């Protein structure tokens, strides 16, 4: 299950961060997302180490915490997407698929003429679409 999804801007500031847990752990998830930005930086700055993921938007598993797995995605405009999931057995393809759909939703949201680039995304339509994508995570491949 996806517990948190975040869009992080150029100054590593959160543009959109949404947790999907019942428990009251928003703050903890914020910290996880924030710390994972270090790994994104590391990967982006040392592309030679990450080898095959060069020139790819999907950054792969950023780091495993005990209870979560954190995946990253970097758009061509250098906006970062961070995904935190509790599923410890996740298929890469699912995550890629998720990010692809999430990216499409993000592009639509920032294409809104009333959206100011660099500001937080407050669109309700975007939020609804994101929660739909999150709910269908892992199912889509089965269909």
């Amino acid at each position, binding site marked *: 299950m996806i517990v948190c999804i975040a869009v992080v801007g150029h*100054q590593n500031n959160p543009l959109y961060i949404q947790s999907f847990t019942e428990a009251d752990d928003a703050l903890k998830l914020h*910290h996880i997302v924030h*710390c994972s930005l270090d*790994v994104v930086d590391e990967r982006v700055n040392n592309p030679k*180490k990450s080898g095959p993921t060069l020139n790819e938007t999907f950054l*792969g598993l950023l780091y495993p915490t005990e209870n979560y797995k954190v995946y990253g995605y970097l758009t061509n405009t250098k906006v970062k997407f961070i995904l935190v999931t509790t599923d410890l057995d996740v298929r890469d393809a699912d995550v890629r698929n998720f990010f692809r759909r999430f990216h499409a939703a993000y592009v639509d949201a920032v294409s809104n003429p009333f959206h100011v680039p660099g500001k937080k995304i*407050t669109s309700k339509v975007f939020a609804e679409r994101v929660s739909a994508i999150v709910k269908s995570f892992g199912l889509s491949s089965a269909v």
Partner: protein
Amino acid sequence: MRIEYKPAIRPTQPTPICSTVAYALSFLFPHRDPCFSQLHSSAPNPNFHSKSMEEYPDELRTPPIALSCLVGCAEVHGLITAHLHSQQPPINTIALPDFSKISLIPPKKPPRETSEPVAGIFRRDWLSKHRTRIPAVVAALFSSHDVSGDPAQWLQVKLRINHFSYILLMATIRGRNIKLVVVVVTLSGHKDYTSEDRMVALRKRAEVDSKNLIIFVPDDELELRQSLNRLWTAVADLANVYYRDEGRKIKVRLEKRSFSSMELNVRYCFKVAVYAEFRRDWLEALKLYEDAYHALREMVGMSTKTPPIQRIVEIKTIAEQLHFKLSTLLLHSGKVVEAITWFRQHTANYRSLMGSPEVIFLHWEWLSRQYLVFAQLLETSSADVQHVPSMVSVAAEKPTEWEFHSAYYYQLAASYLKEKNVSLEFALSMSEDVGPIDGSAESVVASAYLGQFARLFEHGDTCIMQSLTDDEYVRYALAEGKRFQDSFEIIALLKRSCEAYSNLKAERTAAYCGLQMAKEYFAVSDFGNAKQTFDNVASLYRREGWLLSLWEVLGYLRECSRGISSAKDFIEYSLEMAALPVTSDAFEPSSKDCGPAGPATLSQRGKIHEEAFEVARGESELNLKEQNTELKVNSDYPLYLEIDLVSPLRVVLLALVAFHQPVVKPGAPSLITISLRSQLPTNVEIDQLEVQFNQSECNFIIGNGKKPHIAAISNIQPGRRVETAPSLVLATNKWLRLTYEINSDHSGKLECIYVIARIGPHFTICCRAESPASMNDLPLWKFENLVETIPTKDPGLAFSGQKAIQVEEPDPQVDLILGSSGPALVGESFILPVTISSKGHAVYSGELKINLVDTRGGGLLSPREEEPFSADNLHVELVDISCHVPEDQSEAPSDKIQKIQPSFGLISVPSLDVGESWSGQLKIKWNRPKPIMLYVSLGYYHQSGEPSLQKVHVHKSLQIEGKTAVTISHRYLLPFRQDPLLLSKIKSVSDPDQMPSLALNDLTMLIVSAKNCSEVPLRLLSVSIEREEDNDACAILPQHEEFRESVVHVPGEEFKKVFTVIPKLNCTRLKIGTVCLRWQRDSRVEEQFDFCDSAYQVTKHRLPDVNIELPPLVVSLECPPHATLGNPFRYSVKIHNQTEFLQEIKFSVADSQSFVLSGPHNDTIFVLPRSTHVLSFMLVPLGLGSLQLPRVTVTSVRYSAGLHTSPASSIVFVYPSKPHFEASDMKETRTNSVVAE
């Protein structure tokens, strides 16, 4: 000291190991006082870990080393021990001085009965026993004397040693299957004791191979080394055999699965692995440790007679030990990825095995220790191994970046330790009766089996171990747990992790560690450290706009400030929190768990805001319950907050100041708009605003119209301007705009610096003014979707408004006139009149500044000069400034500034009333022709006695050309119709640089011509030739001529003067002298400045050196100056031979149609030395006018030089009849020998 602990992949290749390998690891982890960690130390030690790797026993931490034993001949033990230890691989030794001590080797236990239940998995002392007490090889040392005598009497020999000991020795080693080496120690002089047959006999008796019987010669260097090497080879081989046999023996049991319980399975695997390690067979060791680990894993959940809690504790302890061995082997062989994967597996396996809830803290402690130990292992091995993540492994299982760094594991160790702390506290609170444990806890000790505990009863001298029930164990564990305080360890671990992450440039993760650390400090009420750490963390969250995290940190910081009773910090943090853009909207139901400040909501912000202002106004004093300190703001402790451009409090109060115009005249009013904005959630009413400028007399105060009494409170300086605004209320995100007029009399920059808001009697916020044009976005609010408002009503001003205005100078009402009189002439002191005339301003303390600047920017110095500054180098210099001092104003010369430098001048101007004028002259001298720019500026006060007034400046500039006035040239002329033969002229080819040659003792004309190059008429005063050397080398006439009536020289005209030169000395380089021409400007200038009458300029022209030589021949033509038609006249050619030789001269005369000629036509004649030959012709002119005389060509044979008379010198004028001349005219013509061209 570094070690390499590499499993040899190819067993034939010796693996290099440092000699002190046994102790190397312990050097890496220096021992500390174990008691230290138990103490509640006041300061946390960063190198402080409670249950780190160093608490493992030595034998576990170090790779096993084969053990041998030396018996007998104690004098050579030192030598052998050192040698065995220094070899590769090293061998440890137990040295027993004589055979009776052999009983120290523990005898073989009787075989265990299979029916007997297994009490535990590992014996606690098994490993150390094999490391230190059971040797693989015993080397029995005999002195050669002992084996002397007849080999047949061997038994007696043996008896001599001590038969009993020998039997014991053999029994011991046979029982344990220990190998034997016999060493015969002999001196090199006593070789005969060790004869072949004796040795054979000895070998047979001791049942050893020949290679295991070694003759040891300690007193010969070479033989000693050989025998030591032989001994080492023998011992090492035998040790290998021993460990292999031992391992094989147990392995057989494993293969047959002939064990009664899982415990034995694990134990056997472990033993085989250890024996393999002794043999340095790392691969096998690794495999068997893995088998042991997996077998142990299977034991989880199997019921045994051991109580379940203790069972799990034991299994985990064993798993920890096995995992440690595995990780060590993997890491030291460079298989970092495998080690990490293994560790991941290990923690995943056991994380869920929490055990009973009462002692769940033990589980967390255990898990924390796993991470800590792995971190330490990784840290020590990373020095050796460059870990590059291998690409071959599956991408999903590939360890991520941080897993290669110890920081990651330290962080998790800390977090589990924290977990342990929490659960321990919970467990303690659940069982309050744990305090007084009937003394039984003290008697609980570690039992003989690893990971088990037992109670020790003492019955007199004997001790009995009694196993514990789970209940007892839990109480024991709780009691033990209570003795330690983990906070400092957690802090130390986090600090380590934080530093490591910072080194990896992972600042966010480092900050997260910092946050945890600060929370731990906070938990132990170390507010100082907590605040400092929180502050660092907060700055990162602020920068990156992580609001929720920032909210939490600020909440903690608020509590810390309360803890250290700093009202200022408390209010700063509170206000920052209140102004955070936390707007709990529908998207995110705000989290409850957001630190001590409560949920991040708008209402909570409002609450914090109110609380802060209550304290700030002094209306409430926050009392802290526990400490008797309080946060106070009153007249003794006024509160002063300063907000600058980088302060996080800019969101609380932002002050923009904009002048409506960029420049203003002094005294003229200008509008200024002050815009204030706050993001605080509720309205703030300001009692008084003060606006401060860099010109303090412009400062003013804006009072709140609704609170008129407040203005009286604050101490307003007398004379200060006070305005009143109808209301000063700041609403959230709304601009409060105030526009006022401002008036400055001072020219220069007028800049608004501070806007100071006073709220209540003791609370002041000093806000640095910003310009709207250069305003930065508010740091955190810029990411929010906020209604953008402009700070001023005029949108143009909002984008371009500046907080500073330029106050201009008043307009000058004084004329500065530079009288120009055309170009200057080089050499003269050019006079430039300057006039200052007042038109509307009186002039006080006037100063005139003069600057000379090269128009081409090259400076006034000539470019080649690097030499010290001197007037000669200057092309143009300011020589003097003179002025007319009015007679009546007898000013003291002291207050008259006059400063003159070559390119700069400063002169004070006397005070002038309106309408008066003043003039002076600048005297500028040109040394070389050069155009310059003259800048003159006048600065003055237009009112006297007010130094605060700004000076008024008038500037003028003028370009002046400097020109050369006169150019002088010269040439030499020979006397008319006389030609000396100058040999140098014949010899040399025509050369422009050639020195002119003059004939010795002969008269030569020097014509000096001076051309006026300037544009003004000049008056020439005199011309002279100044001799350089005062000698009689040559006579020049006239030396000096003063013109009685000065010659006016109009532009372009050329003036000529003739001198006669008679060289008297034959020399090749004669200095003639310098022509000096004195001149001055013509009268027009003179009328204006009468004092310039006496001033004249001198133009000099140095005449080049000449070559003087004696001409061998001088030819002169003689004929009358004119002739009359038909009248014959004599025309003679005189050839004067000045040499001592006879000269042969050829001559010829060409006929001319204009004359009838009589005389020799052509011939060769000889001229005697120092005599003159005259060729004489009579001519009768036949024509009229200027006629060419017949051409005479004279050639000297000796010098091959001919004389060709010039056409000009051979012309005669023929009159039709004899003319009549006036006598006076004749005279005139003769004296004035001016030759007109």
